[in-house]
């Protein structure tokens, strides 16, 4: 089903935003700073992707779940959303873990 992967990514990103809003993890903590981290992160990983494609390491497989829109040869539109999800998940996890680790560190020091 074409578009299935994009739909899955958008649902996941929405879930990340809900968690972010609920626990004030990333954008809900410092929106501009978060946007800057996301922008640099996505560009960094996109360069990595393009290099991997150029070296012939990975490419789009025989599938029927992509929308068909390409950003570059072998780089589907979905890759942009995948990288957004990777970066958002990472920073939400970091935002969630930090207070827990902080408490654990302070307990051990006191």
């Amino acid at each position: 089903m074409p578009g299935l992967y994009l739909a899955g990514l958008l649902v996941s990103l929405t879930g990340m935003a809900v968690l972010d809003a609920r626990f004030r993890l990333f954008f809900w903590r410092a929106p501009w700073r978060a946007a800057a981290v996301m922008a640099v992160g996505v560009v960094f990983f996109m360069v990595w992707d393009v290099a991997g494609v150029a070296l012939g390491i990975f490419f789009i497989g025989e599938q029927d779940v992509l929308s068909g829109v390409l950003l570059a040869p072998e780089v589907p539109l979905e890759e942009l959303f995948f990288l957004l999800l990777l970066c958002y998940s990472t920073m939400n996890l970091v935002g969630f873990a930090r207070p827990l680790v902080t408490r654990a560190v302070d307990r051990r020091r006191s």
Partner: protein
Amino acid sequence: MTGAATYALLALPFFAVVAVVGVIAGVVAARRARAAGRSVSRGRRIALGTGLVAGVALLVMTIVFDNVIVTLRVVAYDPSRISGATIGAIPVEDLAYSIAAVVLLPALWVLFDRSGRRPAPERAPVSERATLPELPSAESEPNP
């Protein structure tokens, strides 16, 4: 560049960039902590611990997610350019993205922090050693 190590070698320049950004963020965080009279070692421990906890969770999530998209054949690999070591359906090299993300992104988060801008602090002593990025702890940041 071809051969079974291609995918693994591709990660090296990106890991190098991540390491440099991580070290710079660590130095900046340590300098800020000193200027504010906070403990540098506590900040470092929190940063490393947070990276470890978030990193393990991210790796588990990545393994699940990538297995789904590789099984759906959204992405396919040239078998002659990967090591052949796999976790389920995915090449282990795939995990390099997550490892890079969990160091690079929190480091950028530290570097993009403009909240505590004060008059430039005294130059840190030359003996200052590089540390890993300090993630701002909950109490070190004013609530928005």
